[in-house]
């Protein structure tokens, strides 16, 4: 009995999660006479095409490119930095606890403070804010902690005898890392890359005050919510969601492949 009730609850929850998104997917597949609300008037791909027409909905393509490159940059830095730091945490060192709490507090501080803080800092220092400088820094405060926590977990389960064996066979630090440690942690790095990229790609609040002259994709979409009143907005939502889902599927596939 309880199980049946819980199954119903779970089903309702999934409906709650997906219902709204299914609504905009449906509404973005309309002809030119489509509107922002149901019923669907005609079926077509008109609005999906409109997304790429610059004059109608702003520069979606360019802001997508910015978000894409920023995401890659964020992922690259987050991986390198978090792998280094989590390796350091395997040995005892002074200040380890402080660094740990610093990393955690980066997750706990409300995003608007990061945005405001970096914005003010750049202003006081008279440096122009830009998506690839201040924006990058803001994104790192959100992605590095996640990457670091995942890596801590990975190294907790890591068997140090493999490294010792490699050293006994005469491998140096670099060689041990490249030929023993890296292949073993590689699947987790894919996980971090995937998580880090989507965290950065979808980040709004931390970016909102520090992106400078050119918007990232979420900022562009936010801007459109106030002045675009056509299903093109939904079409944009459908496309970026499709992009994210494809990315997760690909990353998940790669993870499965490499962890075999």
């Amino acid at each position, binding site marked *: 009995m*309880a*199980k049946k009730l*819980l199954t119903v*609850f*779970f089903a309702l*929850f*999934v409906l709650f*999660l*997906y219902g*709204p*998104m299914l*609504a*905009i997917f449906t509404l973005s597949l309309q002809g030119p006479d489509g509107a*922002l*609300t*149901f019923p669907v008037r005609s079926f077509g791909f008109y609005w999906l095409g409109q997304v790429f027409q610059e004059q109608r909905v702003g520069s979606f393509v360019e802001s997508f490119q910015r978000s894409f490159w920023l995401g890659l940059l964020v992922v690259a*830095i987050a991986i390198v*930095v978090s792998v*280094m*730091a989590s*390796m*350091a*945490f395997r*040995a*005892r*060192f002074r*200040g380890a606890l402080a*660094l740990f709490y*610093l*990393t955690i507090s980066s997750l*706990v*501080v*409300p*995003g*608007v*403070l990061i945005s*405001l*803080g*970096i914005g*003010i*800092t750049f*202003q*006081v220092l008279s440096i122009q804010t830009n998506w690839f400088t201040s924006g990058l*820094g803001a994104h*790192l*405060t959100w992605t590095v902690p996640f990457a670091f*926590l995942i890596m801590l977990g990975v190294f907790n389960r890591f068997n140090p005898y493999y490294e010792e064996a490699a050293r006994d066979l005469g491998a140096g630090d670099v060689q041990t890392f490249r030929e023993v440690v890296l292949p073993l942690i590689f699947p987790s790095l894919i996980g971090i890359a995937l998580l880090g990229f*989507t965290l950065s790609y*979808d980040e*709004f*609040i931390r970016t909102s*005050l520090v992106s400078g002259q050119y918007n990232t994709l*979420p900022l562009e979409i936010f801007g459109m*919510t106030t002045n675009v009143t056509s299903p093109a907005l939904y079409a*944009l*939502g459908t496309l*970026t*969601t499709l992009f*994210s*889902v494809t990315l997760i599927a690909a990353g998940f596939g790669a993870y499965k492949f490499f962890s075999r």
Partner: protein
Amino acid sequence: MYRTWKALQPYALATPQAIIFLMFLVFPIVMIVVVSFWQFNGYAMTPAFSFDNYINVFTSQVSLSTYINTFKYVALVWGTCLAIALPIAYYLTFCIECESIRVLLFLICTIPFWTSNIIRMISWIPLLGREGLVNQLLLNLNIVQTPVEWFLYSDFAIVLGMVHLYNFFMIAPVFNSMMRIDRTLITAARDMGASSFDVLKEIILPLTAPGIAIGSIFVVTLTMGEYVTVRLMGGGQSASVGKLISTQIGSLQYPLAAANAVILLLITLVLVTGILRVVDIRKEL
């Protein structure tokens, strides 16, 4: 030579991460605190030491009611997220026997959290708006005679939107804690004659507490400074501290925004420390 390198190695490895957080977390927050004591005159801010900004915050009726409003959102969102997370995590952990189905169902819960928050917000419009699907349904069924207005652009919509955005941050840690519970404990309790309710109260809830604490920290800090949902789902009528800050920045009142940010940070820290006092989460890490 090798010895010293071994000893210095952890420091060298940890330095980049320390630099990133010093540059983009610690220094900016120090700057916020400094600027919150500065003066501004409508055009520019000038370095000074004045409590004017704080006095302004604490004496303004608008900002006080904004803070109360924010607490209201945080409490409602936190309570709702917890009320959803407990049964969902319980269902996944104890009602689903097959491991691969459990993973699949959990993945179904995660996928929406990989897409843009703003997209997930605007996707409520065709459902809850004046001419939205829900209103059309209610009108056709003759449950209401005129469209219900408070579905969208209201406090209800704001809380609904935030719960939609952040419930996963509660579900994941609660689920993680529940999965770690030793099943033999439950069997033993049942053998001793415990009812399902006893098992829930004496075993599952206490052992899930660290997960609830971690989830609560996430949900509280995420909703505390939130302003996108407040803006999109509140339709300009409602306010939260995050939105207040962003409005003040919009009108270049940086010192005032900074003072609000400092207060927001202090409140968040108090809440987080409070949660950590109640539950020891170190065991989870």
